[in-house]
């Protein structure tokens, strides 16, 4: 499907438009109505109002007046919402007005057909949009929990819930005190410091060893390749609780439990599968004749690696490194087992905080972590595209 208009659009009969709008209005009215005490009344009022609006917009005013009509609808709905429920009502009302203004013209002018192939039956068109709505709902499910955390982290109270002041957009309901706590409380700052001490070193170990091994694995004749691969990927597959249990037993024998290096080793090993996977994937498209050419011109293997191969696979190596970093930065089970009180990392602190529900400082930490993961995600995506471009694959 492209953005081009595939089907000529035409104005729909008013009966159809008014009917669809009445149904949509009734649906919205049901929720508003139950919130106010009477669902049935809500349905009737919503349906009637929307059908009337559709009639006025389509039959009386026509398409020429679309822009003013939509603005008026937004304004009227926003004012109604404000009178009804203050500032939250204003925003909700504005959104309602915007949506229904768009919806009336989208349905009434038949615009929904424009980007679909002409031979679809009405049933198929309906299914097409129902499917889109279902997918939208799943996306909402995916993203809402992450979004919800953010405003809550500005809560002025020590609650995990929205206070009435917050819902009324009262500035007194918001504060930065959890961020202040996060940045000044030694428990949290130490945790951040420990995480930042562990993760880079673990990443360095897994990236350097992992890249070498991935290069070895990508050669054509490796005896026992499958078995080696299975062993190297296993830290990702074996449940963390089992890794943690084994490491706790074994590391306590060799005196690594509760030490910095114990955690670094454990995290390095957990990050290795990600490095192997990303670097091997990059090497699949690597043109081997380049290293041969370099060797032909007299470069020794080390020079060949650093001057020819490394620059080409660098995006893969870096994104593998970012994966390893986030694995270590986010890891809590192993740290819970083999860490010690002085070596509490950020996830440990969050985990104990969540279990004992101490304060919404966790949510401030969570918001900061989401910001970090957005940065990491962006860099990985940019690197992936760069890598594909370097290897001459399609940029998308």
């Amino acid at each position: 499907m492209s953005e081009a208009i595939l089907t000529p659009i035409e104005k729909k009969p008013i009966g159809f438009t008014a009917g669809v709008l009445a149904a949509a209005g009734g649906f919205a009215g049901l929720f508003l109505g139950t919130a106010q005490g009477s669902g049935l009344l809500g349905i009737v009022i919503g349906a009637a109002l929307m059908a009337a609006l559709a009639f006025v917009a389509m039959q009386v005013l026509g398409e020429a007046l679309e822009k003013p009509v939509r603005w008026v609808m937004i304004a009227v709905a926003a004012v109604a919402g404000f009178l009804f429920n203050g500032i939250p009502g204003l925003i909700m009302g504005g959104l309602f007005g915007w949506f229904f203004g768009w919806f009336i013209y989208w349905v009434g002018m038949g615009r929904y057909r424009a980007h679909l192939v002409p031979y679809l039956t009405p049933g198929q068109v309906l299914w097409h949009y129902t499917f889109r709505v279902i997918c939208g709902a799943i996306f909402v499910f995916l993203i809402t929990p992450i979004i919800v955390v953010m405003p809550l982290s500005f809560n002025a109270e020590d609650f995990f819930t929205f206070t009435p002041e917050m819902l009324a957009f009262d500035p007194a309901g918001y504060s930065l005190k959890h961020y202040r706590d996060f940045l000044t409380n030694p428990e949290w700052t130490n945790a951040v410091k420990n995480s930042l001490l562990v993760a880079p070193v673990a990443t360095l170990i897994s990236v350097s060893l992992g890249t070498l091994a991935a290069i070895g694995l990508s050669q054509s004749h490796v005896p026992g390749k499958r078995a080696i691969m299975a062993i190297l990927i296993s830290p990702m597959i074996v449940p963390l609780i089992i890794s943690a249990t084994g490491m706790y037993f074994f590391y306590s024998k060799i005196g690594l439990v509760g030490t910095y290096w114990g955690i670094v080793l454990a995290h390095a090993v957990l990050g290795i599968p990600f490095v192997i996977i990303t670097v091997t994937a990059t090497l699949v498209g690597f043109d081997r004749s380049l290293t041969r050419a370099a060797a032909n011109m007299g470069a020794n293997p080390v020079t060949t690696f650093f001057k020819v191969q490394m620059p080409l696979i660098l995006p893969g190596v870096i994104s593998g490194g970012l994966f390893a970093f986030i694995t270590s930065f986010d890891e809590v089970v192993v740290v819970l087992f083999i860490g010690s009180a002085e070596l509490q990392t950020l996830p440990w602190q969050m985990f104990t905080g969540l279990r004992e529900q101490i304060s919404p400082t966790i949510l401030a930490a969570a918001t900061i972590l989401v910001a970090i993961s957005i940065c990491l995600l962006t860099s990985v995506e940019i690197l992936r595209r760069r890598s594909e471009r370097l290897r001459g694959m399609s940029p998308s």
Partner: protein
Amino acid sequence: MTDAATEPDKVTGPTPDNALRAADKEDSGPVLAADGTPLKRSLNRALRAQKIRALMLIAPLLIFVLVSFIAPIGDMLFRSVENQIVRDTLPRTVAALADYDAASGELPRDEVFEAAYYDVFFAAERKEHTRLGSRLNYEKTGASSLFRKSGRGIDDIGEVYLDQFEDLDENWDEARPWAELMGDPDWIAAQDAWNGNGSMPEFELRSDISDILPRTAETYEIFARFMQTEEGDSPLEEEPWSVVHTALYQDLAEGDVSGYTGPRADMLQAADALVASADFQTIAFRDGFEEIDEDWVAPEIWQTIKTYSPAYTSGYFLNSIDMQKTAEGPALRDEDERIYGLLFQRTMFMSLVITLSCILLGYPISYLLSNLPASKANLLMILVLLPFWTSLLVRTSAWKVMLQQQGVINDTLVWLGLVADDARLTMINNQFGTIVAMTHILLPFMILPMYSVMSTIPPSYVRAAKSLGATNWTTFWRVYFPQSVPGIGAGSILVFILSIGYYITPEIVGGTSGIFISNRIAYHISSSLNWGLAAALGSILLVVVLVLYWAYDKIVGIDNVKLGG
């Protein structure tokens, strides 16, 4: 170009062309490489060099993973069967119990009580009896307190003899006379000369004392060595334990010391006379144990010790499938004590539900993403990848915020009037909470493999099916769906593997009914300290995961795992 010297055949010496031509001419001879060696060997050598180079590149990482990951796993597997503590702590008892029939329901012979007296005494001095007690307590409730009590009370048996010997001669409770009686004269001299620096001269028994007083010599040697190595005290200055006096009594009662002429001979002869006299008080070991605790004269504790005396046991594994070792062999536990079968079932069931919900939610998304133009799909892909990159704890805390009684979902439902304020839904600390939160957390792992499979399905197949007259449903079910099955398979196994071993999310949002087997393992490691059981539960879980991993490797191939689209 006709210059004779430039033609390959005219040049004598190794050129590749010459070698090939020579090989062509003589059919029987081997093909030669440029340097004259047979080509086959030359190729083999090159191949071997290549293999070695590849292995050298892999070796550091492989060794690293083997040492820091595979070895710990192996250690855990070993722990799940290892049971040396009983044998190490009670060696004499285990040996004496060798011919004891645990199923008979009788008390063991008196020799066993005697052996147990020495074992428990030494264990108590080494402070090992409480560890053994807690180990046996996993199998028989009450063992822990029994051993703790015995550690305190075991002295009473020896005191009987100690007091009588001491009444006879003060020297029997003095350090020096004992050392002179038992110790080698050279050692005594060396120990006397020792000035407190460096290591103590190691205690040595006098050459013939073991023949005359075998038990006493043995126990005194254990005492002296213990004093030297564990306490850092000189045996010349420490009064022996009362167990030595018990041993002395036994030796005197059985043996003959009249021929003894070494140091302190008169003291020993006097003691022998005292033991032989009619008014010397003795106490049977069995009665001594009975005085400490009645439980010692009930057969159960002996059955337990006997059952768990081998160095390796299947007991932990039996425990983890709700069975126990009994005198008659493995048997199911009582109905109300069976928890692990239920937990394994629940873990499996909930992982299946989570996998199914991931398929249901992931399929439409993957379909949409793979059928949209690339620019739009990449934009929407961010919505999938953002949760994937977001910290697990952030997502878990988010679900706690969403699902709790005063949480966002309940608030919204109450505001909409769908739920009364006093009848808020309980969505957290139960199975529902765990399933919802884990579906959200694992959904990207389902979408990514599905997406990568679906984007390889050519749209022309679907169009062809439609143009041949298939309905929408038939097109989907007969043409599109079968091609997307590998993606479903890959995603499902991945999600199932990941969910079956989850710990953090069930711990926080699972309450008591929504926890997994992992939470029980963690409980045994950190709270109940029953590490063997934790290891056995972990081993079972590991086997399940490895079978799935193997299946995943067969179906998908490990090198086809994709991360981040």
